[in-house]
């Protein structure tokens, strides 16, 4: 059954609007152009974050001062965290692919508030600029870690105030995107696009948007309190003046743990799109996956205390948070089982997007299981603040969200740019990244278990062999990343022309031209089937 969308008009890439040149991008309210703006910006910051990461690993290749001083190292891990979290992975998939594909997937011409959408990108750029300024002004780059824990963040001479203000501004970009997505999904679905005909990526964006709207203001307020503490000395977090330093940790993690789900939920949504397409099967357990996204978003609010087991928090709170932490593993497990069940007896095509997606499942499961070790109160006391935790969250964030961002790029690149990406170099890139990634982060799990603390530029000599492996892994990973992005860059100009539906996908984006027309659909489509009905889709050309 074909969906009537009218004749194709000129693509969004070729459309000549009011503005010319760079202005046609930075002043465009087209959700697709804004998606590309976000993608370009956040990948640029990702490159900087990777570079700092490689330099940190180089410092850790041998005990003692190898490359940089302790002070510089402290600033490096703060910057690496700030860039990767606030500038890359939180906006990541929702801001880039969500902006580009959400309206198309629900049969709309744009998001509900296109100007607000453009504003969110400008706010993001403003926040990023402030973050860069904080490195070179005041007392220099902050050295507190991306968590800005009180009381140190209140006392350090480095430029914490401006860095915190940057994160404050960036939060508003996230809130604006969240408001836009919630409204768009409620109000702009095409006729017949009922809630249970929504592609699962849309469900994940919906759950994410709610977390963005509800949790981010808490971070904004918390960071504002840090600024006020530093400027006028309120004493809120100062025990000597009746304040409570643990209050800061509570407030910070009330946002920052749900933020983990802002990072991972959209990635899970992409998995739920790619697996049905490349196994040509209807997704197994549609409603279970959809509701598990909401469950993760909700339970994700209740587990922040597992970051604070060794902080001096009450014993009752510690076991309550530990119990709740175990609960959040249940909806994550539901998703993994459903994905694997979708693959079962499918006509599997191991094209690069699926290969990267399967790596996600493998790496995310290591991240998830090490998360249980970290979330269990008893074992946490052993591995708290060690390299184990660093390994764990890189498995979740990079092995999970990072690999899925790459998979999303490979999956949707033909639609976004109208060019195919050659598969061979992407298999090579995958091999390098997969080996490099595991060589880089698995030793951290072992090192942490052996007792190596995190956030030090130095370590005991007995930890050196595994640190050398880890550093060598960072080089292999970087090589893989270089192959990946150089191939994409070349494909943008020289790749084969992509057909409208190169993968035989069944969701709406594959029913329109590649790259999409300016307004997506000449006529708003009428939806009469679910998103993954492969029996009705013609085979791949």
């Amino acid at each position, binding site marked *: 059954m074909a969906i009537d969308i009218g004749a194709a008009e000129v693509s969004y890439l070729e459309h000549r609007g009011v503005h010319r040149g760079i202005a046609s991008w930075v002043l465009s309210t087209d959700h697709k152009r804004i998606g590309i703006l976000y993608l370009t910006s956040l990948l640029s910051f990702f490159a900087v974050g990777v570079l700092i990461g490689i330099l940190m690993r180089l410092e850790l290749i041998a005990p003692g001062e190898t490359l940089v001083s302790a002070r510089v190292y402290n600033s490096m891990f703060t910057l690496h965290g700030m860039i990767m979290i606030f500038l890359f992975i939180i906006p990541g998939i929702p801001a880039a692919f969500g902006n580009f594909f959400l309206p198309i997937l629900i049969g709309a011409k744009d998001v509900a508030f296109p100007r607000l959408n453009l504003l969110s990108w400008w706010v993001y750029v403003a926040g990023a600029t402030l973050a860069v300024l904080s490195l070179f002004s005041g007392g220099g780059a902050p050295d507190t870690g991306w968590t800005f824990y009180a009381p140190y963040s209140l006392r350090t001479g480095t430029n914490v105030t401006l860095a915190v203000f940057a994160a404050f501004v960036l939060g508003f970009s996230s809130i604006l995107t969240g408001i836009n997505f919630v409204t768009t999904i409620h109000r702009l679905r095409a006729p017949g696009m009922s809630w249970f005909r929504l592609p699962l990526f849309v469900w994940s964006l919906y759950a994410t948007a709610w977390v963005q*709207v509800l949790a981010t203001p808490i971070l904004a307020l918390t960071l504002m309190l840090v600024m006020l503490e530093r400027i006028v000395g309120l004493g809120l977090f100062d025990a000597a003046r009746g304040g409570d330093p643990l209050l800061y940790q509570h407030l910070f993690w009330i946002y920052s743990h749900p933020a983990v789900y802002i990072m991972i939920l959209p990635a899970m949504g992409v998995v739920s799109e790619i697996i049905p397409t490349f196994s040509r099967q209807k997704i197994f357990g549609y409603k279970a996956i959809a509701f598990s996204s909401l469950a993760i978003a909700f339970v994700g*609010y209740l587990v922040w*205390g597992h970051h604070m087991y060794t902080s001096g*928090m*009450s014993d009752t709170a510690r076991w*309550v*948070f530990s119990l709740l932490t175990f609960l959040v593993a249940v909806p994550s497990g539901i998703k993994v089982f459903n994905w694997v069940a979708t693959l079962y007896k499918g006509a599997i095509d191991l094209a690069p997007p699926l290969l990267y997606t399967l790596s996600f499942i493998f790496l995310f499961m290591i991240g998830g299981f090490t998360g249980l070790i970290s979330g269990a109160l008893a074992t946490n006391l052993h591995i708290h603040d060690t390299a184990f935790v660093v390994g764990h969250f890189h498995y979740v964030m990079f092995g999970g969200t990072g690999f899925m961002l790459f998979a999303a790029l490979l999956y949707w690149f033909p639609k976004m740019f109208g060019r195919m990406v050659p598969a061979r170099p992407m298999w090579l890139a995958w091999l390098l990244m997969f080996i490099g990634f595991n060589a880089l982060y698995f030793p951290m799990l072992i090192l942490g278990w052996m007792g190596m603390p995190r956030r030090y530029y130095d370590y005991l000599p007995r930890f050196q062999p595994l640190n050398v492996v880890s550093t060598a892994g960072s080089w292999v990973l970087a090589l893989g990343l270089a192959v990946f992005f150089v191939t994409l860059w070349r494909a943008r100009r020289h790749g084969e022309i992509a057909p409208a539906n190169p993968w035989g996908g069944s969701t709406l984006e594959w029913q329109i031209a590649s790259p999409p027309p300016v307004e997506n659909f000449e006529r708003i489509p009428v939806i009469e089937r679910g998103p993954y009905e492969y029996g009705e889709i013609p085979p791949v050309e």
Partner: protein
Amino acid sequence: MTALGTYVKVWLALIALTGLTVTAAGLHLGSLSVLAAILIASVKSSLVLSFFMNLRSEERVFKVMLGVAMATMAVIMLLTFVDVWYR
């Protein structure tokens, strides 16, 4: 359309509740003082939302959305107090 008189009454109620907050703070209720302040503030914000922001006459979906936000905040506060009360 809400009558002007209703707005004035709500405003007076808000002022009275502000007075109650100040009074309650002076009673030294220990750990209950925070609870009292939160309860009074909840009543005040409900009044503002219902009357000044006209939530009373809005569609159900907006009330549900606000309910979700309020419930989330309530659970977050409760969990924070699980630490503070048992420390």
